[in-house]
């Protein structure tokens, strides 16, 4: 038998979570983190394209974007921002609990994170329904309910109507809502995937798969969760806030 195949396997001495192509636990952990960051870079470029579209069309049609932006519900948007930040905090605490070997703490933090993530999606659904009610779903995404908002006349304060500031056209407001639904929709999809990942991590934690020595899946899932939070940190001011100071000008 060739010498190379007769290996004195050190199964007894190394950690059971260590894959054979890594030297040690530390190298394995760092490789995992780096790999996740490379994936997140592709995600940054993916969302980056949509941020570019937003910036470009806001630059071209500022009045329409302000009008559309001001139609969004700033209260729900702010609450959702807070909900996501709290969920990022509970996620960070889940990672900490795993690092110090407190399994029960990890489980509680993961469940809290999932509840907060689901709350975010619930609030988002309420907002989407409001847009549906106001006929603001762009194009014919919903064939029976094409884009046809009621434009408010000067002096009309009905919040369900579209209040256009000077220079804004309804067509470009529709463009804003295409971008709004594309970006918040992709973000919501990432949240749903995140909830799936958290379910898996929760079950793995439940089964005692992690320890202070081995918990890369928890750490890496945390990176994903925080990344989705960061996307929202930018979406919130861009979609909901810019132009608020012009809310009561004209229209």
């Amino acid at each position, binding site marked *: 038998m060739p010498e190379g195949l007769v290996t004195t396997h050190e199964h007894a001495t190394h950690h059971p979570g260590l894959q054979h192509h890594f030297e040690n636990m530390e190298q394995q952990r760092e490789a995992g983190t780096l790999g996740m960051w490379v994936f997140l870079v592709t995600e940054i470029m993916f969302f*980056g394209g949509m941020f570019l579209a937003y910036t470009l069309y806001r630059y071209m049609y500022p009045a329409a974007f302000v009008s559309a932006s001001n139609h969004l519900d700033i209260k729900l948007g702010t609450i959702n921002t807070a909900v996501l930040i709290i969920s990022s905090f509970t996620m960070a605490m889940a990672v900490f609990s795993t690092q110090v070997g407190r399994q029960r703490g990890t489980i509680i933090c993961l469940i809290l994170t999932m509840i907060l993530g689901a709350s975010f999606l619930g609030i988002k659904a309420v907002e989407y329904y409001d847009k549906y009610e106001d006929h603001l779903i762009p194009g014919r995404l919903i064939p029976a309910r094409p884009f046809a908002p009621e434009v408010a006349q000067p002096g009309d304060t009905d919040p369900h109507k579209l209040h256009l500031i000077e220079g804004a056209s309804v067509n470009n407001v529709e463009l804003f809502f295409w971008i709004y639904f594309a970006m918040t929709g992709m973000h919501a999809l990432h949240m749903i995937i995140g909830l799936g990942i958290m379910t898996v991590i929760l079950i793995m934690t439940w089964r005692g798969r992690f320890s202070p020595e081995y918990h890369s899946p928890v750490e890496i899932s945390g990176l994903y969760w925080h990344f989705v939070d960061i996307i929202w940190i930018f979406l919130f001011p861009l979609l909901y806030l810019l132009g608020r100071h012009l809310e009561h000008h004209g229209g």
Partner: protein
Amino acid sequence: MSEHIVQPRIYIIIFLSLMLGTALTVMAAFVDFPGPLNAVVALTIACIKATLVVLFFMHVRYSGRLVWLVIASALLWLAILFAITFSDYWTRHWLPPFAS
């Protein structure tokens, strides 16, 4: 380099800063700053919040140089994407259209 465990105290400070940043950006949105300053204020606060999340919640402050390099590369390519696109759209009306 062994794993650095970020203490809950730091997470709480970052969490409170993020909440404060959110409150500030909402309040600032209703102030009528001159020129494009509203957008500048909103994006500055968003960038600070994102940086806090990346450095502390995502542990990059304590990560190796390779992770920093990967993140920097993302920002570089994002900058290229924006710069080249806007070098077109921003300058389109600088010259009168050709008369045929």
